[in-house]
């Protein structure tokens, strides 16, 4: 007896009328990306359901993947058995014991194969009795069961489907276009990326790397973050911008209080250029109003001036503690809190202006020519791809 398939139910997107197919296709694409390491598993998509046929693959890693794929409202594991009373009973018991820890249950049997000698009412009772005899802490409750075990006796085989496992909901990543996430390595930016993905946005990331002031570990941290995010959608490309020369020049040439503002403007300009080059229509940042000097209303007013691309700021009104809660939940917190400097924390002036003024920024920026360094940064940008499953680990042979 083995797990045969996983039944996936769509959530909100089932409501999306004529666009539904667009959404379900995207979901199929994303699921495919996540189950790539399990080549025998195959996807079947219907109007309101999707099935992953396991063909002998182990269900656990695929179940884990499904928990994270946006657009999945809920899903269930199903066992295929012979049309035999005992086998069906055992399947129902196994589903219950494997996937829950003590809950009330009910059995809902459907017999489309009328050659099967026991009718569905009788089967409900017999399976229920069998489960009761062979388990502890699983009472029957037909009105409000914790788990509804569905049994479908068909012509060739019987399918027993277990309890609903909650998916993350939202829309399939990629169904709402693409954004360029400004990924620093801190706690906020991955959460911003996650929330954008939850609304169906596909992400690419941009990271500013300033060796030797920021080190390889800081870069690795960003790769690990991108990889963690990729589990909620598809692979994530990271544009790593060599930022040292430009940053050093800003640091040397711009008066101390304004160097941070100008640096941010440079990042914004580079991001826009990279987005434009790759056909990406928006930027996403982890800014949260008032959190640090660059995230005051005045700072945003001064920094945002350099682009007219839409900037998604999913965290803009959130409290830090709420952001941390999400970061922990999506497993980015531990990575983000590794103690390496990123480009935002080196060269930070003692007292950056919390209320920079546009005219002053114009004045300072206007006197210096940054174009050579700026273009070099864009040209030197390297693309790293983070895949949801780390077949790209350099240690695969060792381990």
């Amino acid at each position, binding site marked *: 007896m083995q797990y045969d398939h996983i039944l996936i139910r769509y959530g909100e997107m089932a409501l999306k009328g004529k666009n539904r197919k667009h959404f379900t296709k995207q979901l199929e694409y994303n699921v495919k990306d996540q189950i790539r390491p399990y080549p025998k598993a195959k996807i079947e998509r219907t109007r309101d359901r999707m099935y992953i046929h396991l063909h002998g693959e*182990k269900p*656990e890693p695929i179940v884990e993947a499904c928990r994270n794929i946006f657009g999945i409202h809920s899903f269930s594991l199903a066992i295929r058995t012979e049309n035999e009373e005992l086998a069906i009973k055992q399947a129902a018991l196994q589903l219950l014991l494997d996937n829950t*820890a*003590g809950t009330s249950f009910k059995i809902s049997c459907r017999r489309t194969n009328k050659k099967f000698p026991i009718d569905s009412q009788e089967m409900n009772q017999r399976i229920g009795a069998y489960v009761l005899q062979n388990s*502890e*802490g699983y009472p029957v409750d037909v009105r409000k069961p914790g788990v509804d075990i569905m049994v479908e006796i068909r012509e060739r085989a019987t399918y027993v489907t277990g309890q609903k496992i909650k998916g993350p909901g939202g829309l399939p990543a990629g169904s709402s276009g693409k954004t360029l996430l400004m990924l620093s390595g801190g706690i906020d930016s991955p959460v911003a990326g996650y929330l954008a993905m939850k609304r169906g946005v596909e992400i690419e990331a941009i990271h500013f790397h300033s060796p030797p002031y920021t*080190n*390889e*570990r800081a870069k*690795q941290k960003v790769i690990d973050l991108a990889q963690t995010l990729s589990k909620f959608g598809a692979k994530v490309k990271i544009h790593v911008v060599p930022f040292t020369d430009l940053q050093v020049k800003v640091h040397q040439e711009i008066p101390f209080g304004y160097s941070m503002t100008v640096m941010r403007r440079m990042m914004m300009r580079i991001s826009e250029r990279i987005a434009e080059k790759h056909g990406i229509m928006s930027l996403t940042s982890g800014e949260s109003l008032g959190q640090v000097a660059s995230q005051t209303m005045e700072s945003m007013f001064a920094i945002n001036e350099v682009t007219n691309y839409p900037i998604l700021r999913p965290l803009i009104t959130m409290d830090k503690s709420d952001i941390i809660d999400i970061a922990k939940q999506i497993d980015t917190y*531990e990575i983000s809190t590794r103690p390496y400097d990123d480009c935002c924390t080196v060269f930070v002036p003692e007292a950056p202006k919390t209320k920079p003024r546009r005219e002053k920024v114009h004045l300072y920026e206007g006197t210096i020519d940054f174009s050579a360094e700026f273009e070099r940064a864009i040209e030197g940008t390297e693309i790293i791809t983070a895949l949801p499953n*780390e077949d790209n*680990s*350099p*240690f695969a*042979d*060792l*381990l």
Partner: protein
Amino acid sequence: MIYFDNSATTKPHPDVLISYTEAAQTYFANPSSLHRLGGSAEQLLTACRKQAAQLLHVGENEILFTSGGTEGNNLAIKGTALQKKRIGNHIITTTVEHPSVLETCAELENQGFKVTYVDVDKYGYVTAEKIKAAITDQTILVSVMHVNNELGTIQPIKTIGQMLTEFPHITFHVDHVQGAGKVALDIKKSNIHLCTLSAHKFHGMKGSGILYKAADTRIVAQLSGGGQEQALRSGTENVPGITAMVKALRLAIEELRVHPAKLFELRERLWAGLSKMDDVVLHSPPAGAPHIVNFSVPGLKPEVLVHALGEKDIYVSTKSACSSKNSDASAVLLACGVPDTQAESAIRVSFSYDNTQQEVDYFLQILDKTLTHLKKVMR
């Protein structure tokens, strides 16, 4: 050579040795060093932790690398006792645990903790009911081994763990040293808070182990220093040993998945053969772990048999290697109510994946001959 002493230690897998050598040569830097070499050693360590977590179906932050089973058990038990001493002072364990659990408990008794040693049936089984009956409002820790090292008894860990969900203030520790890679254990579903593994029992290298610690379980460190392993186990990480262990764990678990019946078949063959011998008394439970068979030849000193078999290049144990230097009876067997004469003469055969049916047959044949011969001499 026929090596049937795999519960004492296993031979490192050749691929594991290759990984060890490579890691020791290339990733020798201290993972805490700032430079690039340190960084790559740290990355390897992170990759090891990730793989260990995936193989055990737990979180990466729930893996603590240790030096092995004894350290893991000490850290789990003393660490919990110190953490919770203000809540209570009572510990529950069983009479058939490994010395690294029993002696640790005895040490805590000297420090004022109270320990209940729950007794077992004739096969070494403890029940959730008996554990539950021993719980008092002072109980802070329950420690039960998964697979008994002498008998192969598989304790009802999941049932005990689920029973303990009624007592959320009690920490549940499982010594999984003999079970890892041989008998599946679902750490999360069994409500386990602390779980000990040791690399050299599954073809890794000596000196490496894992203590699983559930994310919300707190313990007090037993080694103070540089703050490695969440400051719960200071000391420069043994990167090559850990690499080898994680690789060995993967190979063992894959083997278990691909050939789930292999060890059972070896055991069945041995069991059938031994049952036919009049002088042999079997002690292991019929439904025990697939890799351990314990039996006695009453009246025959087990050392004699071990040495006689050793002359034929066959290696088995008398009780557990950790306590076999004192030649008195097996404490585990005595705890099961086995008579002294049998408990004094116990022999343990323990398999691993590289053993074969032919080896079992040859062993049975030699054992039969040896017994016949020894009987003539000794009477």
